[in-house]
């Protein structure tokens, strides 16, 4: 048991193994994710009933909520990957952490934008200093910080370590930030404008939401795999397996691919 775990760990640390396995899995994630998303979105947009309070604007939920959830869990994943990299000196893990940062940031932006747009018809304003909004904004800043570190440090190894430290410190603070923002808001905020509490949703509204959430996670995997493979190619450009792979790769003129 222990030895097989160890073997798995070493395998995961191997770029070539990761490259191959992710190449094999990506299409499946893509397929499943796209199917789920298609079903969920069509169902949510066209078939689910309108909310009796918010009318049709509630259909934004099917992208807003998955993006919000995923951007938060992506940060945790990134910090965890950074921790593994720092503690066990596993380079693969650093690659994954690096690759998650821009994806997570894009999802945080998606959450903020869809939320802001949703706010206009429901709250009558694009932006309020609500607890959730504020903490999502701060999460975006945390992502920006990590990305900025990667951009600012040229030496890759150093950049990975520095970003790892920042991500970990940030993740320790996420619950504190969230708690403080929520607490702050309940103190000041007139209760008129708060985000709807977890609704006891009708199943025909809830199931598509579930589908899109799972679909987003699948897509997320595809994106992480694709970016990781690119990073690996460049890092391992001197190795034989990459050279072979690149020789066989179509050049820019390749009309067939």
């Amino acid at each position, binding site marked *: 048991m222990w030895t097989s775990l160890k073997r798995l760990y070493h395998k995961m640390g191997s770029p070539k193994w990761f490259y191959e396995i992710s190449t094999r899995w990506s299409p499946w994630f893509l397929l499943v994710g796209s199917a789920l998303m298609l079903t969920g979105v069509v169902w949510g947009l066209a078939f689910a009933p309108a909310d009796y309070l918010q009318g049709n604007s509630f259909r934004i939920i099917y992208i807003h909520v998955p993006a919000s959830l995923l951007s938060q869990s992506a940060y945790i994943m990134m910090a965890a990957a950074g921790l593994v990299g720092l503690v066990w000196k596993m380079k693969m893990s650093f690659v994954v952490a690096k690759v998650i940062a821009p994806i997570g940031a894009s999802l945080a932006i998606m959450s903020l934008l869809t939320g802001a747009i949703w706010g206009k018809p429901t709250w009558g304003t694009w932006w309020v200093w609500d607890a959730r909004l504020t903490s999502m904004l701060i999460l975006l800043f945390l992502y920006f910080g990590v990305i900025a570190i990667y951009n600012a440090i040229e*030496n890759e*190894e*150093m950049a990975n370590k520095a970003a790892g430290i920042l991500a970990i410190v940030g993740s320790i603070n996420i619950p504190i930030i969230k708690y403080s923002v929520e607490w702050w808001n309940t103190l000041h905020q007139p209760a008129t404008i708060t985000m709807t509490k977890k609704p006891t949703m009708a199943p025909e509204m809830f199931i598509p939401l579930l589908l899109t959430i799972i679909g987003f996670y699948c897509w997320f995997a595809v994106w992480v795999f694709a970016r990781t493979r690119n990073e690996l190619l460049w890092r391992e450009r*001197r190795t034989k397996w990459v050279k072979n792979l690149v020789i066989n790769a179509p050049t820019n003129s390749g009309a067939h691919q």
Partner: protein
Amino acid sequence: MALEYLPDTDLSSKPLLCARGLYCERDDRVLFKDLNFDLSSGQIVRLAGPNGAGKSSLMRILLGLSASYEGALYWHEQDMARALYDFRSDLLYIGHDVGVKSNLTPEENLAWSCPNVTKQDIYGALKRVGLSGFEDLLTHGLSAGQQRRVALARLFLSSKELENKSLWILDEPFTAIDKHGVADLEQVIVNHAQQGGLVILTTHHDLSVPVKTIMLGQTQKASL
């Protein structure tokens, strides 16, 4: 990568600092590879090579300030990572940037970098480097050479009785120093080696004493 050895001055003693298979690459250019050496006490070792050969890089690797290398380092035959405390206790390093605060006086600078010595010792050392009378001026009001002399005064403080640093790593210690000063410094370095210290230095000056040379090669393209 050529490695020139002067015969070891003291073959009987165990080596202080060993390097095995050092490899360093910068911007796709291999600075050195498969570098092996054993340095023992009593030696003066010069890292030589043209500008950009990798002398300072090698020094930073030895110091543990740089992580961009492969290979193994041993201090007193112990793995460097485990001997770090001992290594650093024994170490005196003066780099391209000498770590002298321009807003402190020479005396204050030394009081910080050599915390175990007395004020009298510091005045003595400053006198030795020709800075008597300048002890209480702010360092930024000194000339280029005088500023470097403040840092070099540490060499006069690190003798056996005072700071007891046996390993000196000096990156171009003679920069901006006048003739007379260079001769003085060479003398200190020789004395230190004779008292059982190990000195690793780089310089583009000609040294008037015989030293062991580690030659770092011309630039090469990386090819794995």
